[in-house]
């Protein structure tokens, strides 16, 4: 079947092999986003400190592009993704979706905007599906909640179409989550995210739990869907190779902060931040792909706890290029080359 049948006439787009980035319209604007979790102790459960999971992050996402977010565990990349669609309430800062500030809207006001237009795909699709509901009723629920179609027939039609789009048989409507393999479940997770025709999809480690041969199927599917439905992705992952493949621009996070943000080719060819350099050099490279392993920068020690961030630049405890100023002053996140932002004293 033709996947374009699904689209409303106004939404129909030319299908191209390559992604077309004709518009540079901003879809999502994030300003100084912060998410602190209180640390409580004692009988009275007094707040004794904060875990700064996301600490003063600003960026924007253009329509139709894929922004990759990379970082190691505990760097706050998932918390950031969840704060964007208010699964977590941000502590401070603003998130603008298509020009509307969504940070202070009530749940009722949110519903037509982010609950419909922003969707999320999770790492473990099994944990995010109700085991007691058939696939059909799981996918039906959002359609009912948003009153998008009046008759059951229309809804079923929509769901069947959607299952075909993500590469599942339409008869799988009557099956339950445990009857699918890992790769198929991730396709269900994608179908559920697509059911309301969203504009922005946040994929949090969407392919990390899958085997290599299944992973490449899902990556290809995500790319196809993007060009068919003109979707915008925020692709959160710890896997630098996957992000390089799928993203247009890449942001690197460390301890709750964005340390570098650039077009992917600039970032991978010439990383500027010492952390990005170390991160990229640490990835094991398959031999005979025509490249030599980069001189490896092995970072000493572990990531400090986000509850007890070091003063100054958060990376200074492990940085091979540390200077005096790094211990006391927080570097500003600013543009040092066209479209290449970085937070490091070496470039200020």
């Amino acid at each position, binding site marked *: 079947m033709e996947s374009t049948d699904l689209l409303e006439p106004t939404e129909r787009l030319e299908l191209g092999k*390559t992604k077309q980035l004709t518009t540079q319209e901003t879809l999502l604007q994030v300003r100084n986003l912060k998410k602190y979790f209180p640390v409580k102790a004692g009988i009275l459960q007094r707040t004794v400190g904060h875990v700064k999971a996301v600490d003063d992050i600003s960026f924007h996402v253009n329509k139709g592009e894929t922004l990759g977010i990379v970082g*190691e*565990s505990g760097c706050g990349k998932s918390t950031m993704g969840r704060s964007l669609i208010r699964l977590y309430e941000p502590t401070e800062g603003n998130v603008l979706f298509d020009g509307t500030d969504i940070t202070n809207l009530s749940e009722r006001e949110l519903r037509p905007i982010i609950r419909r237009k922003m969707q999320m795909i999770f790492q473990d699709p099994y944990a995010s599906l109700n085991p007691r509901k058939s696939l059909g009723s799981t996918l039906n629920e959002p359609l009912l909640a948003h009153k998008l179609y009046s008759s059951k027939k229309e809804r079923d039609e929509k769901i069947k179409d959607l299952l075909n789009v993500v590469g599942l048989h339409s008869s799988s409507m009557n099956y339950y989550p445990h009857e699918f*393999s890992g*790769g*198929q479940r991730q396709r269900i997770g994608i179908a559920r995210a697509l059911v309301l025709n969203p504009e922005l999809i946040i994929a949090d480690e969407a392919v990390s739990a899958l*085997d*290599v*041969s*299944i*992973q*490449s*199927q899902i*990556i*290809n599917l995500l*790319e196809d869907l993007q060009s068919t439905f003109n979707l915008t992705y925020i692709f959160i992952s*710890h*896997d*630098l*190779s*996957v992000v*390089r*493949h*799928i993203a247009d621009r890449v942001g690197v996070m460390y301890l709750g902060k964005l340390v570098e943000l650039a077009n992917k080719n600039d970032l*991978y060819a010439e990383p500027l931040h010492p952390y990005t350099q*170390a*991160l*990229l*050099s*640490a*990835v*094991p*490279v*398959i*031999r*005979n*792909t*025509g*490249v030599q392993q980069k001189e*490896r920068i*092995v*970072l000493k020690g*572990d*990531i400090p706890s986000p509850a007890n961030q070091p003063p100054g630049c958060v990376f200074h405890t492990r940085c091979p290029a540390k200077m005096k100023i790094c211990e006391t002053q927080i570097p500003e996140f600013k543009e040092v080359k066209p479209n290449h932002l970085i937070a490091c004293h070496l470039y200020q």
Partner: protein
Amino acid sequence: MSTLLEVNNLKTHFGNKRRVVKAIDGIDFKIKKGETVALVGESGCGKSMTSLSIMGLVPAPEGRIVDGEILLEGVDLVGLPEKRMYGIRGKEIAMIFQEPMTSLNPVLTIGDQLTSVIIHHLKVGKKEAENRAVEMLDLVGFSDSRKLLKDYPHRLSGGMRQRVMIAMAMSCNPKLLIADEPTTALDVTIQAQVLELMKKISKEFSTSILLITHDLGVVSELAERVIVMYAGQIVEIADIDDLFKSPFHPYTVGLIESVPKIEGEIERLYSIPGNVPAPGEVIQGCKFAARCSKVFDRCRKEMPTLRKMDESRSVRCFLYDDEEAE
């Protein structure tokens, strides 16, 4: 180099008479002294079960080795009394696992756990065992090892725990180290630390390493030879350079092509269609036939054998069969 470990026609099955899951369906390979061999495959291909079979740790009674032999320097480990296996596990063959937290005892100190292995196998006193433990912890890169002996595992980070596991595994100078996904749970920068350490260890101790992983990047860093498994069988054995330069088996080709590369641009990723066969699924002919791009009639009827191409290379595929070539 002489052979350290030889696995012949090993079969490990699960289940009962009515339903048998052939987790390992007849595998043969050798590991030479001082060599690092990688066992690669996707989940459910039997790579972890291979390591558990070698260690004599197949969960009984549902799982058992039904056929084959595992020769460690000529001694068959299959059917060896549990008492003798005690002397081999930890001393001759040591193992490190993916989850370093679940393999350390949370209520004992690092020191207790390290020294008990050393006292048991090397038959030394407590004082001497402690010195040995400190020596090992220094080797894996800790700076204040003596203090660390009194610490509990929860105080350590993931990378530190994995280094403790390596120290413990190496403390009795094993002949074979089995590393089952040693870096999968770790972050890239920590993974780099552990990989450097493993390289150093294989050089300094000339220990043979059996590395089990799904990550081809890690394989390419550490291994000299690679065994590719699919659905309980070996489909290809090759030297590392040959494997990545010219993979033979269509599954190996697909596996290498599916991985996004950190260098260079690919328009579209190659993907192997379909799914890994479910455990216990009965397949006639070649197990990869349903997903193979080069499949022909014979593949669906007959099972290809693992064919030796030259000294270091074997492949299980009819494409490389002389009969077909004619």
